[in-house]
């Protein structure tokens, strides 16, 4: 989850998010290098005591400062496009979960084998136990088996919502009347938080998403328990 005064991304919990992190590091390094160079040139120009008034043109430097930026841009574009296509792949999921957005809660349906469905409301601040996170915890978490490809079908029952979990590198809009598909693999067990990412009314900030990745036996026990309770 996010920490106070955090500047960077949350730790990656899925292979796609790791790729995004590495690409961000790569692109940011290029940005820092170019900015440092430009800042140095500005300072050098401003503090220079001798200036040359008679340079008209130079073909060599023009070639350099055309080819070099083009090469740099290609070096940014190729990994970027690769990740773009990687994010769109749905690689034979083991489980499909339907996440439906309502005003103002999410409901999850696991209908592959039995009919399991439940709502996930935010825990109000006055009902939190010590150690729980304000505005992020929910009464029922979306439990998924770890290290398995999970397909999430996102939609909405009333207005636009968006199902987002930054640690998994996933965000997909829930549009009423439309099924949007996304997928992730939770590479490690853990609890991953997200918040609704499309303005949906008064309590848009108060409908969080909690994904809990557990080993498969725990997932099977949990789903049996949830089916009995229903």
């Amino acid at each position, binding site marked *: 989850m996010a920490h106070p005064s955090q500047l960077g991304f949350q730790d990656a919990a899925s292979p796609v998010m790791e790729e995004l992190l590495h690409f961000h590091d790569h692109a940011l390094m290029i940005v820092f290098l170019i900015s440092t160079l430009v800042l140095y040139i500005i300072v050098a120009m401003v503090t220079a005591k001798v200036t040359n008034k008679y340079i008209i*043109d130079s*073909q*060599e430097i*023009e*070639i350099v400062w*055309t*080819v070099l930026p*083009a090469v740099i841009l290609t070096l940014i574009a190729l990994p970027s*496009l*690769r990740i773009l*296509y*990687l994010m*769109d*792949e*749905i*690689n*034979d999921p083991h489980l499909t979960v339907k996440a439906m957005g309502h005003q103002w809660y999410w409901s999850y349906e696991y209908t592959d084998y039995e009919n399991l469905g439940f709502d996930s409301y935010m825990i109000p601040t006055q009902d939190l136990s010590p150690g729980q996170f304000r505005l992020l915890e929910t009464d029922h978490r979306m439990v998924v088996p770890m290290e398995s490809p999970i397909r999430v079908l996102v939609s909405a029952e009333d207005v636009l919502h968006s199902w987002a979990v930054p640690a998994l590198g996933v965000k997909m809009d829930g549009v009423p009347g439309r099924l949007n598909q996304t997928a992730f693999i939770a590479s490690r067990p853990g609890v991953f938080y997200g918040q609704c990412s499309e303005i949906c009314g008064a309590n848009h900030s108060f409908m969080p998403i909690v994904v809990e990745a557990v080993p498969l036996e725990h997932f099977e026990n949990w789903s049996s328990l949830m089916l009995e309770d229903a």
Partner: protein
Amino acid sequence: MLNVVLKQLKNHPALIPLFVFIGGGATMSALYLGRLALKNPECAWDRKNNPEPWNKLGPNDQYKMFTVNMDYSKLKKDRPDF
């Protein structure tokens, strides 16, 4: 027009990389837009002969231009025929 440009190029050969990169970029964008227009199954251009192209996708078809980790033709078919 082309003659003017060619004459300027002779005096300023540094413009050649510019034409190469901008021309190449514009060509690649145009080709991709053409591919999207003609081969994208999400939109129906010809209502008489090809009214619903999205219904013609098989389970093993790849319709994105490029896949990184996934070979859709090797997917096992595990659902019933209709």
